[in-house]
C-alpha cells in the first residue's frame, strides 16, 4: 500500500519574491518539497531551499529500548548526517536543537513508551542548512502521520556589517555576514521555539530579525498548506 502511494507531491513552491517591509534584498529563495519518496520509513520528505537540500525520514511510533523508554510519552530521537565525513560535536549540537524543537510540537503523550526517530541526511549545503533541516523534519513528520500540536518552520537571517538584514542567506552571504541567526517558529502563534545564533548583534537587531522571520514564516506555512492540499486532493 505504501508502494502504490509513491505519487510524489512534487510541488514547486512560491518563489517568494515578495520583499518584506525591511527593504529590498530580503526574500526567500525558491523552495520545493517532495513527500513520500522513500519506501522504508513511515514518512519521508525532501526539502529544497535554493541549492540547499535535505532528505528526512521518520520512523515511528515504533518499538523503543527499555533503557530509553519514557513511561508517559514518546522518546524522540534525531540523527543528522553531514554530507561528508563522520558526524561530530557540531552535528550532536544541531541534533539536540532539532530534537527539542520537535519535542515541543509532537504530541508524545498519545504514544507512550514508543520511539519516534527522525533521520536527516544533508544532500547539499548552500547556506541556511539548519532551517532547511527543520523544514524537512516537519514535512516528514506530517507525512508519517505523527500527531502534532502545530507545524514548525526554520528561518535564517543574516546581518552584515552595516546592519542590513538578509533572509535565507546563501553560503557566501553567511560567511561575509557579521551575524547569522536561525529561528524555529510555530505555525499557531508564530512563537519562538528554537533559536541559535552566530556572531555579535544588539538587542534591537534581534527583535528586528525576529519580526522579519515571523513575516517570512507566513510564506513557508502557506507553502506547506498548499503542497499538502495538492497532495491529498489528487488521491
Amino acid at each position, binding site marked *: 500500500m505504501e508502494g502504490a502511494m509513491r505519487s510524489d507531491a512534487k510541488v514547486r513552491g512560491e518563489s517568494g519574491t515578495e520583499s518584506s517591509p525591511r527593504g529590498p534584498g530580503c526574500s526567500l529563495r525558491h523552495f520545493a518539497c517532495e513527500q513520500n519518496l522513500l519506501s522504508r520509513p513511515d514518512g519521508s520528505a525532501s526539502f529544497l531551499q535554493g541549492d540547499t537540500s535535505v532528505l528526512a525520514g521518520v520512523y515511528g511510533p515504533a518499538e523503543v529500548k527499555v533503557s530509553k523508554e519514557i513511561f508517559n510519552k514518546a522518546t524522540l530521537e534525531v540523527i543528522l548526517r553531514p554530507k561528508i565525513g563522520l558526524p561530530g560535536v557540531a552535528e550532536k549540537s544541531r541534533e539536540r536543537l532539532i530534537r527539542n524543537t520537535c519535542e515541543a510540537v509532537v504530541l508524545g503523550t498519545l504514544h507512550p513508551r514508543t520511539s519516534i526517530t527522525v533521520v536527516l541526511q544533508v544532500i547539499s549545503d548552500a547556506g541556511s542548512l539548519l532551517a532547511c533541516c527543520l523544514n524537512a523534519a516537519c514535512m516528514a513528520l506530517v507525512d508519517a502521520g505523527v500527531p502534532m500540536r502545530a507545524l514548525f518552520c526554520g528561518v535564517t537571517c543574516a546581518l552584515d556589517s552595516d546592519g542590513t538584514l538578509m533572509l535565507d542567506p546563501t553560503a557566501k552571504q553567511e560567511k561575509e555576514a557579521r551575524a547569522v541567526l536561525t529561528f524555529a517558529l510555530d505555525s499557531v502563534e508564530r512563537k519562538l521555539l528554537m533559536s541559535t545564533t552566530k556572531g555579535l548583534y544588539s*538587542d534591537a537587531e534581534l527583535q528586528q530579525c525576529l519580526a522579519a522571520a515571523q513575516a517570512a514564516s507566513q510564506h513557508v506555512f502557506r507553502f506547506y498548506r498548499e503542497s499538502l492540499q495538492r497532495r491529498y486532493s489528487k488521491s
Partner: protein
Amino acid sequence: MAAGFKTVEPLEYYRRFLKENCRPDGRELGEFRTTTVNIGSISTADGSALVKLGNTTVICGIKAEFAAPPTDAPDKGYVVPNVDLPPLCSSRFRSGPPGEEAQVASQFIADVIENSQIIQKEDLCISPGKLAWVLYCDLICLDYDGNILDACTFALLAALKNVQLPEVTISEETALAEVNLKKKSFLNIRTHPVATSFAVFDDTLLIVDPTGEEEHLATGTLTVVMDEEGKLCCLHKPGGSGLTGAKLQDCMSRAVTRHKEVKKLMDEVVKSMKPK
C-alpha cells in the same frame, strides 16, 4: 508530608511555590544563587578558575602548548575548549565517551569563544606560519545542580583572565623557540561575555538560574550570552515551549543586570590576585 507530596507530584509541588512568586530554596524568580569564584588554584596549569553557582561547581584549567598555525590562517593560534561531565558530578552520567550533554556544552563554549571574540586569535601567534600558541581549556564539572552553561562560561572567562604566557622568541641561529619563563604576560581579554540561563515553565513563566530539579521539570530553557556593551554573542534556545518577543525583552534586561553583577565580582577577584 511535604516530602511525600514532592515525590509523588513534583510538578504540582513546584507550582504551589511559583504561585507565590518564589521557589523551594527561597529564591525569587529572578534571583541567582550565590556565586563564588576562586582563581589560580591549580599551580600546574597556566591558568585556572573554580566557579560555584550554588551547588553547581565547575573548574576550568588552561594549558598552553605550541603548535603550527593552520595553513589557511597562518597568523592565528587555537583555543580548544572541552567540557567534561564525569560520573562524579551526577548519577545520570556514565563513564565512557562524552555524552550528548557534554558535547552540546562543548559546542556552546566553542561558539561563545568564537562569537564574542574574547581573545583575538592573532594574539596567540608567535611566528606567522611557523609557531603559535594553542590554549587547551578543560572545563570539568564537579557537581551538577543545573545551569551548567552559566558556570562554564564564567569559569572560562575567569581562567582566561588568569592565564600568563611566557615570552617566546625564535632564535636566529637555531630557528628553535626559546621560552623565557621568567617573563610572563597576561592575555589580552577584549570582551567579557556573561551567560544568563532561564527555564520556561508551563509555557509562560520564566525563572532565572534553574537548579537540577527545576531543569528537569521545565518545559524549555534559554541561555543569553551578553558582553559589556549590551551586544549579544549567543541566544541559545534549544527548543521547548514558544516565547514571544516581549518575553525575550524581559530576558535581555535581566541578562544586562546579571552582567553587571558578574563583572563586579570578576574585578574584585582580579584585584585581589597577587602577581606571580
